């Protein structure tokens, strides 16, 4: 370069030397030139691996990914029936979705050309073959060290095997605030857990509240569908964690421990105001509940909220049923159980203990004195294997021993014990007796045998591991043959090898290998192979009830053939606490629906969404144009149409608003069958507090509309969509027949 700026006129001619050189120009530019191996091109999504968790739609900063409901795909545990569709009129190819994908199913190929004048082709549904069904090598892919999710779980400290060996102190110490927030921060709020939980708890919402350190909001979200959170925080079988999308490639979120942290942190006296309960105007109707297990308590809580007088009858001295007398204290301490039950009492549920229905009170009086009777007596009678020798005095039922331990009575504890059974109850009795043995003899000698082999034992894996740590010896996959008794004393249990437990149709028909015999020494045998109900109190009603196989015939609200009699808990459905709670809540809805006729559940839930928008409704009265400008296209056309169509709408909204129960609104999510019906997600609205600002309410409804309908459609196109036609059918005419058809669908 010339500093003196003289430069020359001839120098440019040096460029002539390039005449002979090969040109830089690319010969055929528009054939797809291969790109770098890491190129960010069009998306490709492996449909099998994808679980439709919607995290890619959540992180997309251009709102380019919309979850489409794929007909023919069945939502199952840990997977929804939605799949991402990508709007290439919005996508900026930043690949955040690829890096956040919970299952690594979404990747990018090296394809980059799509030219068209038909705009609809820019909204694409990526599958494994690629956008134009032309095979392209993969480009930008998710890699281990660059994905955005933290897959390791925050470890919960537990007492070591020695410390807990001989004491009934609770094993789990609980999360500190930092641990809980760190664990809560891992959740991507995909909602798969809510679909799987029998009680459809608002799990992402309360985890979000824990992360925002707003524990009263967390409590409020939990109490919407679960009145026994302290219990569930400790002993729930946490199906939600099996569905957790983070669990696909890493450890699922510790949802149960987070619920426990949230409730432990809220003192009992604050329960009332976090649920902002107002004194409920009594509705003059009363309900009797037999049995205070999880199902009974849950039904009682929600019925009380609706304004009914609830009286509960409990055989044992303390309420709680199986939770108190079945689950040992090291898993569920009684103060935690009492914290929940006291709040239910505080709400106004009257519990009469030590009163056995059928003895102190007979069933007919209940039918006479109360409008509705709900039976939730659970399984308290242990089933015996009836092998020879089970009538010996040293053979006990696990249930009886467990309730004796709870009541503090002393029980027979020999040096060598054999426990028959492979479920959670067997684990409870085994570990309780191991503790008793260590307290009495200083060492544990306890054998647990079960038909099922180790991998298909119904008990939770952690339970089995912790039991082995505490000294229990396991002999899985063996069938009991006979209890060997010599001069009045039990020597042990003769067992054969169990070849298979279920036959091809998965029915229970165990097969044994006779010549593989093994004697398990023990002077005391405890049977824990299952429990059964004791429905003797029904008396002659039991033959009037229609039966469906061995169980009572019930509709979806667990209403038996006699409309005044409802049933809940183990005796009708579900092995665990959370199922009891869910069925209790469902039964409460059914009772409310039956007693309060005018509460049409479906009709009510639509207007619950819209009645909160009464303020907007006034706006629309004043000037329709202003109203139109307020909402996004989908919502506003629907609202305007509704207002126009039904004249008495305004009266109905006003009446619903004045009715106190609408304020303590129930979450109708429960009334649908087990699988999440995505349309239901939109219509049903959870408790929306009155002081929600117009803006937030708008956002909430809109977000739900988009997730529910997948596409951002306007009204006319939506009516062709199958799921919506009964909503708009309703809008078109309000005839009764229309409502009947809706209920059939629910």
């Amino acid at each position, binding site marked *: 370069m010339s500093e003196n700026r003289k430069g020359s006129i001839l120098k440019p001619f040096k460029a002539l030397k390039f005449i002979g050189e090969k040109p830089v120009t690319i010969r055929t530019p528009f054939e797809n030139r291969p790109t770098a191996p890491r190129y960010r091109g069009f998306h490709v999504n492996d449909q099998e691996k994808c679980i439709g968790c919607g995290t890619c739609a959540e992180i997309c900063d251009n709102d380019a990914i919309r979850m489409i409901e794929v007909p023919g795909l069945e939502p199952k545990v840990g997977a929804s029936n939605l799949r991402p569709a990508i709007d290439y009129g919005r996508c900026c190819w930043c690949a955040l979705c690829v890096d956040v994908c919970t299952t690594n199913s979404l990747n990018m190929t090296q394809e980059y050309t799509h030219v068209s004048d038909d705009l609809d082709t820019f909204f694409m*549904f990526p599958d494994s073959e690629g956008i134009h069904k032309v095979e392209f090598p993969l480009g930008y892919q998710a890699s281990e060290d660059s994905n955005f999710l933290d897959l390791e779980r925050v470890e919960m400290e537990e007492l070591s095997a020695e410390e807990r060996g001989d004491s009934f102190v609770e094993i789990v110490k609980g999360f500190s605030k930092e641990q809980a927030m760190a664990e809560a921060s891992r959740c991507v709020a995909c909602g798969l857990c809510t679909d799987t939980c029998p009680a459809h708890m608002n799990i992402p919402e309360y985890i979000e509240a824990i992360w925002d350190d707003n524990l009263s909001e967390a409590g409020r979200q939990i109490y919407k569908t679960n009145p026994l959170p302290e219990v569930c925080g400790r002993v729930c079988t946490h199906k939600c964690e099996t569905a957790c999308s983070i669990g696909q490639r890493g450890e699922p979120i510790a949802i149960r421990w987070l619920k426990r942290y949230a409730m432990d942190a809220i003192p009992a006296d604050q329960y009332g105001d976090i649920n902002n309960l107002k004194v409920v105007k009594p509705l003059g109707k009363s309900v009797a509940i037999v049995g205070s297990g999880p199902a009974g308590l849950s039904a009682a809580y929600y019925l009380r909220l609706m304004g009914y007088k609830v009286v509960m009858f409990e055989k044992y001295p303390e309420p709680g049923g199986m939770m108190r007398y079945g689950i040992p204290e090291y898993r569920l301490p009684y103060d935690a159980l009492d914290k929940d039950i006291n709040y239910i009492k505080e709400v106004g549920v009257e519990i009469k203990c030590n009163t056995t229905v059928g003895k102190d009170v007979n069933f007919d009086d209940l039918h006479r004195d109360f409008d509705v009777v709900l039976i939730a007596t659970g399984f308290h009678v242990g089933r015996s294997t009836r092998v020879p020798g089970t009538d010996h005095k040293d053979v006990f039922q696990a249930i009886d021993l467990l309730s004796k331990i709870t009541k503090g009575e002393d029980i027979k504890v020999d040096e060598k014990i054999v426990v028959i059974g492979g479920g959670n109850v067997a684990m409870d009795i085994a570990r309780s007796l191991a503790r008793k043995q260590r307290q009495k003899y200083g060492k544990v000698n306890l054998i647990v045998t079960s038909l099922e082999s180790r991998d298909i034992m119904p008990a939770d894996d952690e339970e089995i591991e912790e039991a082995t740590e505490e000294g229990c010896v396991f002999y899985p996959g063996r069938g009991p043959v006979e209890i060997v008794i010599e001069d009045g004393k039990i020597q042990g249990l003769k067992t054969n090898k169990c070849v298979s437990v279920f036959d091809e149709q998965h029915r229970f028909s165990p097969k044994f290998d006779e010549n593989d015999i093994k004697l398990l020494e023990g002077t005391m045998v405890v049977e824990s192979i299952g429990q059964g109900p004791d429905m003797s109190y029904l008396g002659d009603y039991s033959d009037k009830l229609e039966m469906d196989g061995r169980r009572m015939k019930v509709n979806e609200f667990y209403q038996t053939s006699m409309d005044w009699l409802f049933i809940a808990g183990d005796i009708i459905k579900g092995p665990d606490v959370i199922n009891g709670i869910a069925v209790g809540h469902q039964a409460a809805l059914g009772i409310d629906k039956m007693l309060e006729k005018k509460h049409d559940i479906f009709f009510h839930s639509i207007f619950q969404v819209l009645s909160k928008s009464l303020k907007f409704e006034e706006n629309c009265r004043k000037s329709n144009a202003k109203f139109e400008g307020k909402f996004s296209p989908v919502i506003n056309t629907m609202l305007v149409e509704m207002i126009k169509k039904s004249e008495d709408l305004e009266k109905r909204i006003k009446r619903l608003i004045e009715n106190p129960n609408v304020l303590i609104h129930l979450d109708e999510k429960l009334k649908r069958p087990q699988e999440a019906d995505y349309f239901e997600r939109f219509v049903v609205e959870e408790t929306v507090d009155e002081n929600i600002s117009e*803006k937030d309410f708008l956002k909430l409804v809109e977000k739900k509309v988009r997730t529910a309908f997948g596409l951002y459609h306007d009204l006319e196109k939506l009516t062709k969509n199958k799921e919506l036609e009964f909503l708009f059918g309703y809008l078109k005419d309000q005839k009764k027949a229309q409502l009947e058809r809706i209920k059939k669908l629910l």
Partner: protein
Amino acid sequence: MEYQKENSIIEAMQLEFPEAAFTVKKARRIEVKLPSKRLYDFAVRMQKKWGFLHLSAISCVDWINDGEFELVYHFWNYDEKVLVMAKIRIPREKGDSHFETISNLWQPAKFFERDIHEMFGIYFDGSEDMEGFILTDWTGPPPMRKDFITREYALNFFHYREYEPQWLKDMMAAGEGNE
């Protein structure tokens, strides 16, 4: 002492501005919080006395909850190689808030002040050029104020596309098929 250079600068300034709060954020970064009426004198001394010849930027932050705008003046010293961030708070009126200009000291201030005027609605008295520059065709409120939500405005003002792709029609048809 760790930030020897920065602290010596602070001492020099502290003498003349006792009411200002000086902190050293990190190497080459000094933060000053001072009352808004003292800003102009501070700016004059920065340029004339302490050699901060470069006004890197004037930023404005809308603290809507405190009801205040925060103006942050970033001065850079070519020789000392230190950046001073002078922060002042002015009340946030509904209409135009007012503040004095420093564009007579630094020419770049003309652009920053005009930009803040357009985006936040703060009128800088004494500046020559306060008319529209970027948002000449914008009729709405100053867009950077926190009470203006751009998403809601866009959703209601502009038209968005509704796609009807062939694969969705086939999928829905297939859905009907096996219903």
